[in-house]
């Protein structure tokens, strides 16, 4: 097994997906955790599994890795069935690398020997495995920590070693189980960049479990929303952000306000929207626009701006450095508005605002 090269998917004999889950059911007979899930990941693609805790992300990753068997359905890696109701290829015989939330570093091995471990299992001599591991550690910027044991490493360093170990196997498939969940915010961002960069180098397919929306949107080629072990929606980051299938999906994929509205005739994707008696003209409209329903308008904070024909009262302001979040109350409800820079109005002031786009959802999907 060699470390994959970027674009290597084009040279693969069948060119098919790297991971396929067909009607995969996981858990126990009496407590099914993942229900008949279908998912496929193309070579070189990163699919984020986004969902709250208990949604089955980790269980799904464990099944792909071969830590748990499937109750029904089948899992294919690189065109080969590795799990179905009767067959179970053990983890060591699957081409997977796994990065654990708990880091899972072995207390008795140095960073170097930890990264060399998968190479040793592939039959490399001790010296050869260590030399290769040293290269990987260097690439991750922790070459100087090679001799340290896990107890002598910080959380971020530990997870870099864990990443190095997963990369060292040169696997076709990388699995990430909330790898940044135990790290602080600043470290999380750098490690995310590290993961993105390293994975792109290898060209491996990846499943990345997380409950952090920003992380999922930033890293993923596609985002899969998981709820109670079921796939709610899968699509590109902009798709799941701009066009959530329901309110639950909308709330999971980012901040959103809901306003009671009525919508005029849609022409060219735009319509006039009445909000508590005031009219916002020319709003870009998508979603369920069939007549007769009384829709709710889902509004991302970047879809509205301060200043305009609508009026509201500024309830509160949160300055976040790069931008400011305003909560503006209207007769139809509270709308969150995000604008770049420092606050422009005082809390309590009456302000004009305008709506640029809205995603309509039927009320009963709430």
């Amino acid at each position, binding site marked *: 097994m060699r470390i994959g090269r970027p674009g290597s998917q084009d040279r693969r004999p069948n060119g098919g997906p790297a991971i396929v889950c067909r009607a995969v059911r996981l858990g126990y007979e009496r407590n099914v955790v993942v229900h008949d899930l279908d998912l496929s990941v193309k070579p070189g693609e990163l699919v984020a599994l986004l969902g709250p805790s208990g949604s089955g992300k980790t269980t799904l990753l*464990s099944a792909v*890795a*071969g*830590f748990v068997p499937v109750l029904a359905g089948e899992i294919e890696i690189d065109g080969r069935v590795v799990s179905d109701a009767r067959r*179970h290829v*053990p*983890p*060591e015989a699957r081409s*997977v*690398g*796994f990065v*654990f939330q*708990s880091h*899972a*570093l*072995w*207390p*008795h091995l140095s960073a170097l020997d930890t990264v060399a*471990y*998968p190479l040793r*299992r*592939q039959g490399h001599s001790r010296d050869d495995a260590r030399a290769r591991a040293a290269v990987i550690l260097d690439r991750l910027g922790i070459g100087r920590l090679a001799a340290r044991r896990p107890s002598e490493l910080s959380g971020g360093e530990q997870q870099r070693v*864990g990443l190095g*170990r*997963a990369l*060292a*196997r040169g696997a076709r498939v990388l*699995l990430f189980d909330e790898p940044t969940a135990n790290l602080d915010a600043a470290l999380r961002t750098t490690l995310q960049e590290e993961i993105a960069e390293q994975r792109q180098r290898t060209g491996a397919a990846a499943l990345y479990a997380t409950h952090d929306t920003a992380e999922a949107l930033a890293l993923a080629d596609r985002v899969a929303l998981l709820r109670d072990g079921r796939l709610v929606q899968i699509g590109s980051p902009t798709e799941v952000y701009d066009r959530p299938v329901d309110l639950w999906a909308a709330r999971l994929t980012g901040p959103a306000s809901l306003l009671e509205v009525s919508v005029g005739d849609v022409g060219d994707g735009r319509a006039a929207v009445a909000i508590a008696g005031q009219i916002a003209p020319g709003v870009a409209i998508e979603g369920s626009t069939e007549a007769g329903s009384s829709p709710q308008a889902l509004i991302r904070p970047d879809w509205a701006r301060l200043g305009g024909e609508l009026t509201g009262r500024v309830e509160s302001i949160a300055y976040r450095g790069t931008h400011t979040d305003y909560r503006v109350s209207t007769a139809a409800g509270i709308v969150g508005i995000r604008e770049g820079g420092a606050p422009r109005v005082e809390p309590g002031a009456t302000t004009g605002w305008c709506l640029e786009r809205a995603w309509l959802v039927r009320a009963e999907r709430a």
Partner: protein
Amino acid sequence: MAEVRGARVAATTLALAAAAAVIGLPVLRLAATAMEHGPTALVGALGGPLAARAVANSLWTAAAIAALAVAAGTAAALVTERVAGGGRRWLRAGMLVPLLIPPFVLALGWTRAFGPRGYLDQAVGVELPGLYGPLGIVLVVAVAAAPVAYLIVAAALASRVEPDLERAARMSGAGRLTVLRTVTLPLLRPALLGATVVAFIFGLNAFGVPAVLGAPAAFGTITTRLYQDLAFSASDAAFERATALATSLVVVAVVVVGAADALLGGRRAARTGLPAGGGGGQAGRLGVAILAVAIVVVTALPALALLATAVTRAVGLPPVPANWTLDNFGEALDVRTVGAIGRSLLLSSAAATIVLGLAALVLAGVRRGPGRLAGTAVTLGFAVPGSALAIAVLLAWGGVLRDTLAIILVAYVAKFWALGHRQLAGSVDALPADLVRAARASGARPLVVLRTITLPILRPSILAAWFLVVISGLHELTMSSLLYGPGTSTLAVAVINVQQLGDPTVTASLAVLLTALVALPALPLLWLGRARAIGSAGAAG
């Protein structure tokens, strides 16, 4: 997967066979023998005045020992885990020192320090009244059992009772004592119950201490009565009484342990937050001082008294350098005792090695069904008091193995299997599953994972478990004294035999040798903070 499953089933089958041979069969033989002449005969055998008094004495001393040991162990745990600052490490080690001294050696030390013609008597003319008799037995066995209770409570304080939970009560307005009453002790309840059971069994099991302190006062317990019936009498009636007494021991132990098990269930709590810090103010410093003094008085002084007796030319002389001699050791180390030392070391290390192999089989085997059965059998072997277990083993295996080292080995394995098992199972359970998964995801097959990950990480625990069983084996007196034959006595048996001949200086020298055999290798372990490992040794004595 099928191969792995097959290996697991094979491991469990082997473990079950071993458990049946060393524990199941003997205990069943004991029960069958006791019931041979019907329940009336059993009750009749227990109804005799001597036997009835022995049962009553055993029960009330064990209860008193449990109460005293748990109170002392809990107080000590509160001091070391919640109050003590810098000296915590020393106090912890001090609390565990009695584990390194066989209880009957501790009793000998107490007689030399506080008994008639002891050093306290010589120095200021004061002796502890009632040292020979129930009071002395309860005190000394409680001192020996306190570390076990201490370990259980201290472990619970460290894992179950979150320091943050206590801090939350403090910031809700509760004072130190209120926190203790309303938060700490209620959370400790399972641990206190567990400690009480273990200390009660420890007291019920005690043989060496009642033999040393009870015999001169004609105070008999089940264990000493059993010993007399078996060692000094060949009559059928005596043997019948012995099996009846042994059965009563088994019943009491099983009832107590079973009831506690049912009450305890499997309750656990996870730990978060900061560890508790030192700094307990005035009251805390007082607690530390009291604990330190208590450790010195109940453990260090008796041990020193014994050592002084061993190196002094004759009893009654003051232990000053002018009177020092090593002749007592020379006298003690005759051919027979040297042989006994060799046999003790051989038996203990053989038992430790076998026990660890068996524990590994149980852990590698299936977890449900038959696996649980093996676990139950192992616990039974530990709960059954040594005297009863020895008679059970004698009944089951005496026909072929009587008067051989092998029969003592069978008894040791039956008794100490649980020690090795618990120690090993504890660290196996504490091993995060992700560490094994990470190795599998790195391409390692199960056996490679065992060799490269599991065993290296567990190595300290395996060593500690081995030492634990060796220490317990070296200390073992109860079963050895009933099972030894011509040329198969162990060192502990040799000490008690010399003691009964009544030569205090030679006895002291042998006792010092026996203790040194255990303590010298174990002391560094204590200092390294591996105390927890040696900890559960307790109930073995």
